Structures are given as C-alpha cells and as structure tokens.
C-alpha cells in the first residue's frame, strides 16, 4: 500500500474555493451523520445492521461529485449512507429509513442496507456481498443503448472481489463494452479478515487483471487524488464506452457493523496510523495552510452541519411508522 505513506494531499488541485468548501461540508456531513446514526442505534431507534462509512468519505466525495446524476447511475453495497447523502437524498429520509419510518427513503421497508431512490439514480444498497456487480453491468448495458453517454458506478468492498460474480461481471462488461465503473473500496478488511487472508493477491488491482479493462489504484484518503481520477476516468469512459476498474485504498474507522470491535483484530496501532491520514484532517490542513478557511470557520461549519443533522434526526424520529397495510404492498400476492 504505497500510497498510504504519503503524508498529505496530492499537490494543489485546480478546484475553486467553493468546491473545496463543498467537499469539506459533504465529508463532515457524512462523518457526523454516521456518528448520530451509531448513537441512535445504541438508543434503540435503529435495529439490525449498521455499517458506517466513517473514514471512507473521500472516496464517495471524489467520485460522486464527478458524476452527472441526470444521466449516470449508482449501484451500491450495504455501506451506503454516505453515498445516499452525496446524491442529495434529504438526510431526514435516510434517518427515517434507519428508524423504519414510512417517510424513509425505502418506505421503511429496507433499512440501512437497502436505501433506494430512483429519482436520485441511486439503485440501491444491497445486503449480498457482490450482489450489485452484475446489476451494475446490466445498468451499463442499458446505458449503452441510450444516447446520453451515461455511466454506471458500482461500489463494493474488497471482500466482493472474491465472489464469482465479480469475475463474471467484469468479463461480460469488458466483452460487451459496458460503461460501468467498478470501484473496489478496499478498506483492508472483509469483516474480521484482512485482505491478504481472503485474497490470493493482496494488491487487488492486480487481482482484477484478466479482463482487458483499464485498472488503477487511487489513494482513497486523498480527496484531490480521487476527484482527479474520477474526472479523468469518466471522460475516458464516456468517450470509449468501456468498463474501468478502480481500487480505492481506504479504511473504515468503526467495526464492520455496530457490534464488531475492530481493534480486536487489527490493533490500535494500525487504526492510529490510518487516523493520521484521515481524509477530513488532510483536507482541513490543506484549507488552513492555503488560507481557504480558518480553523475557526471549519469548526463553525462542523457545528452547523451537526446542528442541521440533529434537526433531521428529530424530524425522522417524529415520523410515523409505516401503515400496517404496507406490509403487503409492493409485492404480488
């Protein structure tokens, strides 16, 4: 993991102050959202599964901002809250889904792993590891048959690389020139299993050989690196109508899910090392160094974000449960 050793962000990007501030706000929003979510899980408002995106923010921010969600689509896996925020779903509807309310983004039927919003071109969350890969290839197939040069972005974890459907989907996507971007979010662990203990090659970008598609590794802690790669890749894909494989190197701060104590298997030292390259910290340092924002302004922004999100939590918590009759809606009986 060579990129991991880089201490700060990659050079000076050509991003406007406005864009930089937007990125920061988005990353803070995700981070605070996940903290509130975990709090509400412990408070009993959320049940079942909760997979936090904290630590991985730069990956979503870099890629999703580069998308054109009028024509592009996302197929996601279960670690989906951050991406839902980034496509512009109102946080109160995401919280409402987590609380199992009728106003939730999936009407309360889906929960944490199953957020969907057709209007935001967000085709879901999914609870099956690798379950979305072939669907994303299919969305790409559909986009290829439409005039808008749309792209499908598929997020999945390092663990998904071991599923057969990864192999099948990459092969078909390449064979059929499907404009699907496969983003393997390598956070080093598949639950409690380190990448070298589940994958025969620990450089996942090397494991993705064999399909004749362009591949690259990107530093997922460095939002500038991700944004640069994203822009370049989308341009290539729209022109060439070909799939692409990216390995984004990052780290999840929390356990796999809410009950998982990750330091048990990965050690606090490793965790500390990654916190040293926290994507928000890196961006914050840059903004301060470059005098785009002051530390005080950043703290104010964080408070503002938190404040707004607390209001969303309250709104969602006050929302009604689904109607009992919804139990048998949306399914053929």
């Amino acid at each position, binding site marked *: 993991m060579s990129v991991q050793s880089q201490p700060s962000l990659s050079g000076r990007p050509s991003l406007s102050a406005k864009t930089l501030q937007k990125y920061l706000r988005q990353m803070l929003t995700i981070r605070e959202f996940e903290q509130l979510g975990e709090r509400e899980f412990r408070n009993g408002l959320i049940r079942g599964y909760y997979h936090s995106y904290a630590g991985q923010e730069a990956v979503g921010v870099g890629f999703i901002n580069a998308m054109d969600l009028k024509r592009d689509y996302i197929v996601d896996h279960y670690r989906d809250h951050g991406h839902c925020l980034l496509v512009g779903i109102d946080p109160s509807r995401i919280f409402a889904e987590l609380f199992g309310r009728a106003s939730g983004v*999936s009407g309360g039927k889906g929960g944490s792993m199953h957020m969907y919003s057709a209007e935001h071109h967000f085709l879901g969350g999914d609870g099956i590891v690798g379950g979305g890969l072939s*669907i994303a290839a*299919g*969305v790409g197939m*559909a986009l290829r048959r439409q005039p808008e040069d749309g792209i499908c972005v598929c997020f999945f974890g390092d663990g998904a690389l071991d599923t057969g459907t990864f192999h*099948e*989907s990459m*092969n078909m996507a390449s064979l059929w020139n499907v404009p699907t971007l496969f983003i393997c979010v390598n956070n080093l662990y598949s639950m409690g299993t380190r990448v070298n203990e589940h994958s025969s090659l620990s450089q996942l970008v090397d494991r993705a050989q064999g399909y004749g598609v362009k591949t690259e590794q990107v530093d997922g802690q460095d939002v500038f690196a991700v944004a640069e790669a994203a822009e370049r890749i989308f341009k290539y894909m729209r022109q060439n109508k070909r799939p692409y494989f990216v390995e984004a190197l990052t780290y999840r701060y929390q356990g796999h899910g809410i009950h998982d104590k990750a330091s048990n298997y990965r050690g606090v030292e490793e965790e500390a090392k990654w916190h040293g390259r926290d994507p928000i910290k890196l961006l914050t340092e840059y903004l301060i160094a470059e005098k785009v924002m002051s530390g005080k302004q950043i703290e104010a922004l964080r408070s503002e974000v938190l404040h707004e999100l607390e209001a969303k939590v309250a709104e969602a918590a006050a929302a009604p449960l689904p109607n009992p009759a919804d139990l048998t809606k949306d399914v*053929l009986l």
Partner: protein
Amino acid sequence: MKKLSMHEALNLALREELKRDNKVVLLGEEIGKYNGVHYVTRGLYAEFGKDRVIDTPISEESFVGVGVGMALLGFRPVVEMMRMDFSLRAMDQIYNHMAKLRYMSGGHLSVPMVLRGPEGPGPNPGLTAQHGQQLTTLFAHCPGLRVVTPSTQYDAKGMLKAAIRSDDPVVFLEPGPLNNKQGDVGEDDYVVPLDQAEVKREGSDITLIGYGASVALCLQAARELEHDGVSAEVVDMRSIRPLDMRPALESIKKTNHALVVEYAWQSYGPGAEIVARLMAEGFWDLEAPVERVSGQEVPLPYAANLEELSKPQMDEIVGKAKQSLAQ
C-alpha cells in the same frame, strides 16, 4: 390457428414482442448466432441483431443480474436458461434481487423481466441428473415472483407474451417434454392471463389436477378412465404463483374426488401446495383424500428402464384415481 411445436409457439411470441417493443431484449447462452439449443430463439438474431439478442458467456448468476440491471432502467429482458437446472447458479440473483427489489425499495424500483427455459425430463431422453430436473417449487416459494407454466402450444405463446408485458418479474417454465410437440397456436396478437387456471377437459367423477407437462398425463389418464366409465375433469393450474385454486375448487364441488399429477419430486413439490389448499378450502367437498402421483424422488437416472420408472406412471395415475373413487 396453425399447428406449431411448443418451441415454435414460443419463438413466435418472442418475435412478436421483439417487434412490438424495442425495449424487449433477449439474453442467454447460445441463443443468438447458434439459434438456441432448444430452438426457441431460432432466427431472432438474424432478424433483430446482436443488440437485441445477446449471447452470454456461461455466467448464469451474473447474466440474470444483467437482466435485472437492464430491467431497472426500463428494458424488458427475457433471459434464457439453456436448461432451468442451471438457474441453481443464479438463485441469489433470482431470490434476492429480481424478486425483491420492488419490495425492498418500497416501490421505488421494479424489475419487469422474464426468466425462461425448459425444465423436466425432456424433450429427449437421457438428460440425466443435472439436466432434467423440475425445480418449479424453488421459484414458486419466492414472494415477488410470478411463476407460470403452459401445457399447450396455444397457452405457451399467449402466456409468454403476457409475461413479457408484465411489470412483475416472471419465471416462465417451459415443459421440456413438450418442447417438440405440436398443437394449435393462434396467429393473432393474443395474450393468455398469467393468473388463471383452466379446465382442460370436463368431467364429473374425479378431478385430475396437473400443470405443465403433467396435464398431458392427466388427459391421457382421463381417456383411459373413460373406458372404464369414469368421467374425469382435468384442471391445468398454469399459474403456479399466484396459485389460482378456483377452477379446482369448483371442480371438486362436483366430483368430490381429486388427484394431483406432476413430474416434480413429490416431497415439498408443487403438488403439496395444491393438496394443502384443497385441504384448507375444499375439505368439506372431499369424499376421499387427495393423493399425488409424482416423479420418483431420485436424481434422474440414465438407464432407459430406470429413467422411465422415475417418471409418473400412467397405471399409478389410473389406479389411484379408481382407488379414490372406491372410497
């Protein structure tokens, strides 16, 4: 009406729907250039080209997923399993995605696709254990799917067209033993509803209930019973999920006796649900227990004599029908 084989009837349905709606696409192994192993897609690649008739690698799980993805964006994929046996590879996509996306998304998404292919021991003999299974139950148990199976060439065409137009995901099971058999098919643009069982022969003494390939066995048994003065009514379930019990229930009001006939393995097979529904909704009309004649509960064996013995036996059907009437 004209005489067509089952595969020709299905071919006609696909051709008409490909013409009618350019969102209809076909996916599957050897369906294009090679024209389809069971001939159902014959000529369609030549007529509609490679963007509509898509040859896939041997990647069942994932090309079902490709179908799901295309359906999410408004296409109407018709995905062929060269044999339905191979859908065992795709069960996760079928159960967890194709069937459930509409519900899990609270209605945000829908998956208007068809999964189709031949099941059971035919058309030719000797298919053996991994190619001649009838796995109807596996699909039928899954909420969110429509599961249908035609028993005539006429229904095959009309039901496949209805399946393609359905907004629900449909599993369309083609009775392998009937693939090459001929029958009357309408030449017009008709559809046959997907949720209606049908009386295929009227009778008054006993109700023989079948679906797919076993309807022919019921009709043959009915003819044999007629020689012995027994008048059998034959109900073709057609729709396996949802199951339309009305014609069977009405029938037993009259006959008070019923027998279920199927190629599937008996234990936990489709016939079990039919019997359980007769129990719940028809108990007071029954004068004898409803039994089942099913395929032997063994992997399909190769040897000619064993293969024959593994199928539902005509003498058992006739025998059990008479036995029921004797009670």
